């Protein structure tokens, strides 16, 4: 069984395509708490146990140092996070989330899950994709394929709605990344025309802006406290709540406790929108670029599909509406669509009979090329990027370009393979280098043919053939396997094995305890004492280890917490 996983910045989901009550369809798999959304959060508690998901996120305000949130942003970088006494790479943190999703799927499906289709932002580059594969490897999952998030959304949307001959744009603003894809659906063919995006822009940025606004608006804070709040994540929950409030209302108040004193900050939607102006502005360029690359006039689009939790914000919707003017916005469940699309792709991989009529063709969102020297107005200019496979070409693809030597008696041509869009070669991401020997001749007389072959699994093969002497060189550059050597994987797995993961069946109890602790810190006075008492009672019930006592206590405790805490839960 292959599952589809949406490994998100804020939340992750796992879904599967299978026979349901009303025909084959995608189903989202609930976690131990019964939620389909598992927050992408990892925390290490006092005993050194690793918590994943909602319990971990509940710990964020109280234990900002021991809790990691939004680590997807660091994928593919050498950024390291220290939780408790251990240092984690972003890949390891993602692996913990994936492992948790995997065990949820196994518990739900009753069979081992070995393979998964994992979604990544369309605009993830090769390094970030490799990191995602590495994370899956560490979680004991074989990656059946990486699928671009807006493509997944488009696939799910196309199959669910079956619109006839439609060209639509998927506007995917997730927790940490922003993607735009232009897709076309006809006769069961889901064709991606162009993708563009920004891997450093998402809902979390809006939260950060709002957090700064809240800190600024809270006059009762000292400078030192402001500084501390600005750097930490302890306000995250308050601000997230405020953001959600501002989605429904024009003004809202954030209430939070710092050093035992309650603070209030009243923020209006208008203020928030002004502060987020810069972020909204950054949403435009990918849209323009995707349309330009798809060679479409905006009027040729039939629909704009909004995906990703952050598209719930009214200002984002207004921005999109203004941008596309008359186009209808398609509002689908923005959190779940990507996971469903991943499940469809997983089913396509195993040739599920129900999807016989569906074909997906995707594009390569980045350009691939080499660094060359170009002659402009008679002057030789080095470090110029010469794209061989231009971005948004359908994959698999194979393209060939001819190049010439630049100096007399040149004996070797070194190809510096790069991925990116900058006209300056060295500003693009280096993927590899290879050399081919050429016979010494005057400059320009020797030509070489460079063939780039890129397949759907993200493997880039470079073949170089020199025309006269027949020298050739070959290199496989973006290998889908071998991200880490087997030795490294073993090592990383060994380190991961040393972690004590909090048992799955205890997750629910743990969640309520962490939630109560968070509430305890949030409240003052009598309410605080009351929470403390309830928490003590629940912990006492847990100590009895009697299943029925625990069950009753938990239900009571949950009811109590729900009354106390009217904020968002997921």
């Amino acid at each position, binding site marked *: 069984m292959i599952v589809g996983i949406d490994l998100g910045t804020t939340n992750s989901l796992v879904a599967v395509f299978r026979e349901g009550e009303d025909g084959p369809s995608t189903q989202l798999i609930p976690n131990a708490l019964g939620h389909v959304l598992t927050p992408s959060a990892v925390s290490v508690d006092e005993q050194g146990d690793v918590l994943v998901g909602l319990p971990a996120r509940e710990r964020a305000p109280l234990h900002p140092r021991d809790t990691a949130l939004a680590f997807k942003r660091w994928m593919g970088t050498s950024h390291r996070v220290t939780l408790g006494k251990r240092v984690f790479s972003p890949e390891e943190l993602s692996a913990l989330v994936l492992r948790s999703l995997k065990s949820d799927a196994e518990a739900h499906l009753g069979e081992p899950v070995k393979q998964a289709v994992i979604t990544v932002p369309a605009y993830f580059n090769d390094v970030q994709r490799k990191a995602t594969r590495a994370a899956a490897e560490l979680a004991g999952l074989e990656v059946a394929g990486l699928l671009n998030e807006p493509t997944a959304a488009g696939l799910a949307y196309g199959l669910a709605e079956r619109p006839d*001959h439609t060209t639509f744009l998927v506007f995917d603003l997730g927790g940490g990344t922003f993607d735009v894809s232009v897709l076309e659906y006809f006769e069961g063919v889901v064709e991606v025309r162009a993708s563009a995006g920004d891997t450093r822009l998402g809902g979390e940025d809006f939260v950060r802006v709002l957090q700064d606004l809240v800190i600024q608006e809270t006059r009762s804070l000292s400078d030192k406290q402001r500084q501390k709040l600005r750097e930490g994540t302890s306000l995250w929950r308050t601000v997230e709540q405020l953001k959600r409030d501002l989605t429904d209302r024009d003004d809202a108040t954030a209430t939070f406790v710092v050093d035992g004193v309650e603070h209030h900050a009243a923020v209006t939607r208008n203020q928030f929108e002004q502060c987020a102006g810069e972020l909204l502005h950054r949403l435009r360029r990918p849209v323009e670029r995707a349309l*330009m690359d798809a060679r479409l006039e905006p009027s040729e689009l039939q629909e704009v599909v909004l995906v990703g939790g952050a598209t719930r914000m009214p200002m984002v919707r207004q921005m999109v509406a203004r941008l596309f003017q008359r186009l209808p916005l398609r509002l689908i469940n923005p959190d779940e669509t990507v996971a469903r699309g991943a499940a469809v792709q997983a089913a396509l991989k195993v040739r599920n009979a129900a999807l016989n009529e569906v074909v997906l063709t995707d594009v390569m969102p980045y350009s691939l090329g080499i660094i060359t020297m170009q002659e402009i107005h008679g002057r030789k200019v080095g470090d110029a990027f010469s794209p061989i496979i231009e971005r948004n070409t359908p994959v698999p693809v194979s393209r060939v370009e001819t190049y010439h030597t630049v100096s007399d008696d040149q004996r070797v041509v070194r190809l510096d393979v790069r991925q990116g869009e900058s006209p300056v070669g060295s500003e693009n991401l280096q993927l590899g280098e290879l050399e081919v020997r050429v016979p010494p001749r005057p400059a320009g007389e020797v030509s070489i043919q460079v063939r780039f072959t890129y*397949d759907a699994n993200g493997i880039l093969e470079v073949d170089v053939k020199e025309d006269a002497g027949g020298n050739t060189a070959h290199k496989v550059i973006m290998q889908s396997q071998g991200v880490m050597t087997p030795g490294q994987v073993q090592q990383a797995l060994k380190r991961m094995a040393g972690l004590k993961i909090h048992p799955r069946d205890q997750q629910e109890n743990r969640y309520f305890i962490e939630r109560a602790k968070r509430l305890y810190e949030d409240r003052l006075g009598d309410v605080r004492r009351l929470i403390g008492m309830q928490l003590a009672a629940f912990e006492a019930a847990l100590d009895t280890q009697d299943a029925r006592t625990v069950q009753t206590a938990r239900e009571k405790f949950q009811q109590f917490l729900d009354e106390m805490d009217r904020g968002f839960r997921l």
Partner: protein
Amino acid sequence: MTSSWPWSELGLEPTGDKVRIKKAYAAVLKHTRPDDDAAAYQKLRSAYDAALEEARWRTVAEAPAASTAEEQEETRLAAGAECPTSEPPTSPTPTPHLGATSPAAQHAEAQDGEEEQQGGDGEQEAQDAEAYEDEQDWSDVSPELESLLAELADGTPHDHDVLWTRLRRALDEVPLGAQAHVSVRCARLVVQNPALPSRLALALADHFGWRVDFRQADRLGFALHHELQAALEHHAAIAAAVAASPSQEDDAWADAERRVGSLFAGLLGWSKTTNAVLFATVFLHRLNRQWSSFLRRFETAKSPAAGRIMGLSQHVFPVATLLRLLLAGVGVAAMGALAAAREKLSPWEWLWVGLTTSALSPPVVDVFRRALRTITHPVDDQPDMLEPLYNLFPSTKPHRRFLVSLALSGGVFALSSIGNPDIPSRAAVAQLVVTAGFVLTTRQVWNVTMLPMACVLMVDAVRFTERSSLDPVPWSMVLALLAANHYLVQHDVGRAIARYERPYACAAEDVSRLPWYAWLGFKAVVPTFMLLALVTAPRRVMVACRRDSPTMGLSIIALVVWLHIAFPFIPMIVGLWLFGLLLPQLQRAAEHVTLRWAVRVVRKAQA
């Protein structure tokens, strides 16, 4: 029409009906899945693309009038559709001309409920953009943006923060369909108005992504793209200088930028060869004078011990004078660097220029003159009217011949560069004249050659600035400069030449000291380059080391300094070579240094 490929691949007869093509493609695709057989899929895909392209042509040919009614509504689309019928397609291959018809075609397709619009290359887009530009049909652009752009083009002074906020808001309101055209328009604005504040230009670049996407070249057109990149590079350099200056008071900066920018742009054309040579010439007068005074004192002192420490002793040669000398050398070398960098000389060409410059540098020329004097005027130290003539003949002794040829090589270089389209012929002529100025020494010669040359250069500077995007030079400034130059020639040079005479006479007694003078000459040239490298290198060398290794940059500097101490001759060669490599950076750095200095001056003046 061909009825084989691509139609055979799709199992179709040639058709203009896109829906049929898509259906056929979808049917074949179901058993040619991309992940099964990549090669087959690629074949199918190219057939599909070709078929759609051909279908587009058929639609254009069949329904030229279909869109006329809609055209009035969608004026912008129609603006590009100048000749939908004039060129009925007879071949499925796209030609650049047909780009102009595509909007009508798109429109017809949109009416049919179809979306596909393939093909069309960058050139077409650029042409489309041109067409829109020419039509001046901007119904989609808000009047607010229109007026802002007009204000910017006029150079109306503004509070730039406010202006940018407004402009940004207006740009955000631009509908997606008009983006490309607004981008082209703003690019023109940046290219045509170099006085545009750098922050604004860079903000525009960020807004449109001009510097991060190679496809912009297609969108803007090749020529405009290159001009734009050059303009942005200049703005980025200025912005970096602002960022590097200790405090950033934007208004002071903007003011300084405007003043200094127009001054230098006018005066020097910021480093066009002609103007730089002009500058260097003025500087060289001073340099010549200083050197001859130094040599004279040195000769008078007749103290080998003091000479050995290179005049660092107070009573033989004041340190301040030496420093002034070096700074003057830096100025000349910097101007040369600026000129060469803007002209984009290769490292080898630069080496050549460097060698010529050093050969022409006062100490070397002095030594050379001294040598000539030894032959032509063994005893007499009265000026000789025939001197120019003698000077033109190479002497018989090998080392003298070398010196003469070295000095004349500047002329050779200048001659060889006439006819090189990248170097203005005036620059070459100017170089020739400057060379002559060193070889011919009398005041009459200066008057006869240099003054007219200066006129030529000034006129050229004016023409250059008029033609280019720089601020024009007022003629009053030209006249003032001419007057200044004339004064220099009459007064300074005249005195300097008189002073030259004496050292020559002294040297006549002892030809064996020639190597010692040569050594002094090199000593003077090397620090010039060294100083320049040190002033500009720390940041720039790191850039040269591919932005990732500051240690590497620092070690290069350290190595050069050490070499300078250990082997005075090697660093000159290394310095020249490094200089060639670092030229573009050096040029920018020199501009930064000057501008930063200028900012400080303006601030002080304001305070």
